[in-house]
């Protein structure tokens, strides 16, 4: 995984709460067995509406997605963060995320940033007012900055370190194989096996 340190760019304001992963990437596109190529189907249904914000060329090239609360709820499909990332986004900023979606983002280095509702609102307003507004998401400093906005966000220490270093979770866990072996040796024998 590539290290994630600082993301600087323009943003797309998706002013909706409870955006579920069926909207982010509909089920009919989950049949690919590759990890790439999902960006073309991002918000596939909503995109058919010419007024949908993703069709607004003023926001072309945005690397930060601003969204409402409980973003990414529903199905556990990692295809959702893959599609967002494949489309060119590097961070999603919202008042809250669904747990599985947030985990999935963190595994692939797409940064889920939780800010207070008022701050997300302020960022949306700033971007709607001037689509060229640059937002900085600084993982090292745990800060989101935009003109007139300076907000701290939170990230588990370990996850932050892992993202900053670009480390793969599996490799990290494999350093603890001895502990896994030891745990395994003590598992009760009634547990089922295939």
């Amino acid at each position: 995984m590539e290290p994630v340190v600082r993301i600087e760019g323009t943003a797309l304001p998706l002013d909706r709460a409870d955006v579920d992963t069926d909207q982010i990437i509909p089920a009919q596109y989950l049949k690919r067995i590759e990890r790439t190529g999902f960006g073309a189907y991002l918000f596939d249904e909503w995109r058919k509406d010419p007024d949908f914000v993703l069709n607004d060329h003023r926001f072309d090239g945005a690397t930060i997605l601003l969204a409402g609360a409980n973003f990414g709820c529903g199905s556990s499909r990692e295809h959702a963060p893959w599609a967002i990332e494949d489309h060119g986004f590097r961070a999603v900023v919202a008042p809250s995320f669904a747990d599985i979606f947030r985990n999935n983002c963190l595994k692939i280095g797409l940064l889920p940033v939780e800010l207070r509702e008022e701050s997300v609102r302020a960022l949306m307003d700033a971007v709607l007012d001037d689509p060229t507004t640059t937002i900085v998401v600084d993982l090292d400093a745990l800060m989101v900055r935009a003109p007139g906005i300076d907000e701290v966000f939170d990230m588990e220490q370990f996850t932050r370190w892992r993202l900053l270093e670009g480390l793969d979770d599996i490799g990290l866990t494999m350093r603890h194989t001895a502990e896994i072996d030891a745990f395994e040796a003590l598992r009760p024998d009634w547990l089922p096996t295939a």
Partner: protein
Amino acid sequence: MGRTLAEKVWEEHVVRRADGEPDLLYVDLHLVHEVTSPQAFDGLRLSGRRVRRRDLTVATMDHNVPTTDGPVTDGISARQMEALRRNAEEFDITLYPWGGAGQGIVHVIGPEMGYTQPGMTIVCGDSHTSTHGAFGALAIGIGTSEVEHVLATQTLPQSKPKWMAVTVEGDLPADCSAKDIILAIIATIGTGGGAGHVIEYRGPVIRALSMEGRMTVCNMSIEGGARAGMVAPDDTTFAYVEGRPHAPRQAAWEAAVDHWRTLRSDDDAVFDAEVAIDASSLRPYVSWGTNPAQSVTIDGVVPDPATLEPAKREAAERALRYMALEPGTAIREVRPDTIFIGSCTNSRLEDLRVAAEVVRGRRVAEGLRALVVPGSVAVKLDAEREGLDRVFTDAGFEWRGAGCSMCLGMNPDILGPGDRSASTSNRNFEGRQGKGGRTHLVSPRVAAATAIAGHFTTPEDL
């Protein structure tokens, strides 16, 4: 201080704990299906890694499979199913493939074969893994990168959740079911209400539910935003597990039950959040919107967004536009054109029996398309042994093979644009059952009665 049920199971599975890091949990059972696994197996191949515990990994095909006889006509679906077959072969994993005995929706076959047992940690690349929590297992839905992680290490790094108690008390009205309990809970706590929490469902109403009912409740924990849902195991649980193919036997069974009896929240356990539901006030629920918290009772009307709190207004307006519903319309006047009885929420034998009792000797309303899709091949065969298939087909239902079917628009069973369903599944998101399809979530009783009447209703009204 006492500990909660979930905390006990959690603590029993900590392989490694270090300051500032998530706990590393051991995974007792990893269920795999065709949609969220191909990229994980690819990852293993790319990095030259192996599956650490093939014997704790079980795979099946459910999301893509057709529920009628004949070949898989969709080439991309076939490719995805074939990828799982190849991966299972290459990594020597037990697979219950489409067309074979044992196949079915991953959350139906785990319990029915006795893989799912109290006190276990269970993961699957599917959010409705929470279903297995009905047995007092800690069952968590994961994404594809995590699937790869579990395949390679049989562990999962997880930050500690919070504990929530949802207590259901009072007398559940006879026309209400487990589905109505969970829809009521979600309507109460909201779609994000359980975020970051593991919910323990407790109280006399939950205790009185069958395992099937408990699975229905735990299944939809994710619709309330929770990481998992659980019910403490008891004699109902043990009676269900005993004798199943992968359940412990003899001395091992005795040892297991002794341990399982310790799996309950201590009397002085402290929950981070507590919610109480009065079952006596419940009615059968019908969802009207595009998320599962947007529901009202069968006696209700489609709400007027203007009367909702501002934060919910816009979403409600959008939902009503999508659902083509007018505020103030009585739910009983809404007429679906499709009935779907199935999905990991409501496709077990008990669900099918309840629905069959309603439709026995009656006919599906003119012009309605009605499907019954058993959750597994085993459920299908059991139902056929009881003659339920005939009850359904005589009434005008289609009797299908096992799979996810119309729960999601990934296989041939889909809603067309503008179609309106009464569905026993768990998600009513836009397009969930097919592009432009409109979903109303209901219990099997309401779905069956609605099939006969042609509009939303309960069996009591027929």
